[in-house]
């Protein structure tokens, strides 16, 4: 019966996604070779955050604080822009009481992504931030946020974490390099 609940919820999620979703995001259930749809596995794409939001806040802050704020804001611009990162969501039969497992490709460079590609995020943790009301859209936007603002309190891979802490310049370079590895699909 729980599987029925999961499928019903996923059908609703898909329906609402088709009607409205953030630009550049993709989220669709897997289509098996024989043409049937597997609702339990979704193939998603998360676009790297563009710097536009920062540009807008920058303009406001310039009026308030003056030109020196430009240097600070410049450092905050996202290096993830231009990349369209593939993510697989695996839903269990216990969804939505348990969160889906979200995986980037193996070896994805990010302090909070395990070497296997699994995303480490509080809202995806059954024991901390997950609530059954969290939608697929909220998960994907949450992961997009995480890309740009890693959480050093909760590292999941050594390479990304050390570089983020010790060598910010090299970290930025690496992130931009990775963005080029995942160009837009179209």
């Amino acid at each position, binding site marked *: 019966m729980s599987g029925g609940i999961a499928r019903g919820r996923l059908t609703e999620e898909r329906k609402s996604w088709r*009607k409205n979703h953030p*630009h550049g995001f993709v989220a*669709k259930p897997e289509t098996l070779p024989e043409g049937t749809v597997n609702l339990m596995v979704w193939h998603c*794409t998360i676009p790297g955050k563009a710097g536009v939001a920062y540009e807008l806040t920058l303009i406001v802050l310039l009026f308030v604080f003056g030109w020196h704020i430009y240097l600070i804001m410049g450092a905050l611009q996202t290096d993830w822009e231009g990349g369209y990162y593939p993510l697989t969501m695996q839903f269990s039969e216990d969804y939505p009481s348990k969160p889906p497992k979200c995986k980037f490709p193996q070896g994805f460079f990010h302090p909070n992504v395990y070497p296997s590609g699994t995303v480490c995020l509080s809202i995806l943790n059954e024991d901390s931030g997950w609530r059954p009301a969290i939608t697929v859209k909220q998960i994907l936007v949450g992961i997009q946020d995480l890309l740009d603002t890693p959480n050093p309190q909760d590292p999941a891979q050594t390479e990304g974490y050390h570089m983020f802490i010790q060598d910010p310049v090299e970290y930025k370079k690496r992130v931009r390099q990775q963005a080029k590895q995942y160009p837009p699909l*179209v």
Partner: protein
Amino acid sequence: MDNSNDEFEPLFDYTRVQPASVICLDDDLDGTPDFASKKRRISDTTDEKKQDVNSKDVKVIDCGGKEEEEEDWLPPPPKNLDADSKSIGEDSTLKALRLERQELASFARSADDVVRAVEESVRKDLSASLQSSPKSVAKQPVEPQRERAKLVISIQDKDELKQFRVYMSCILKLIQADDKFERLFKIYADKTNLDVKNLVFCFDGDKVTPDQTPTSLGMEESDILEVHVKSS
């Protein structure tokens, strides 16, 4: 003379019928105009009367000015006074206004007549079309099918926060599900003043080509097409 006095009586009534709390103030204020009026009533010449009117006006307005700072409800009396003194002028303007109103009323009546005439003609047309029912019956079964095949698809822009709403209102298109996307792309490009060649349309992460149709993509009501503008 008497008439002019009558005209001003309401003013004094106004000031006397004030709430108890303001009485001390009113006594002072009432005092001056009363004295002035009594003094001037004694000297009865028409010219002076005219001056009276003016001087009373001025004084009353002054009182109003003082009280305006303290009380909100007193200003009306001086205005009425002014209106009374200008009553002759206003009568003519009132007459003009009444005339205008009558003209407008007649205009509205004529407009009503026009509307009725139009309604009648429409009814005649309707009855005529109903009489030629055999033809319309043949047409009707075709039209509902077309309506069913229609889809509302919205096109989502990159800067959705700013432009999405605008595009929603003007780009929302009822397109027939068998139409090729080519037409929709052209309409969108025209509306946004962009070259179709620089626009990439996506559905569910896949590129949409101009010769595809909503049915071939399995699109449903209120699905979203995303637009990406090529940076070239």
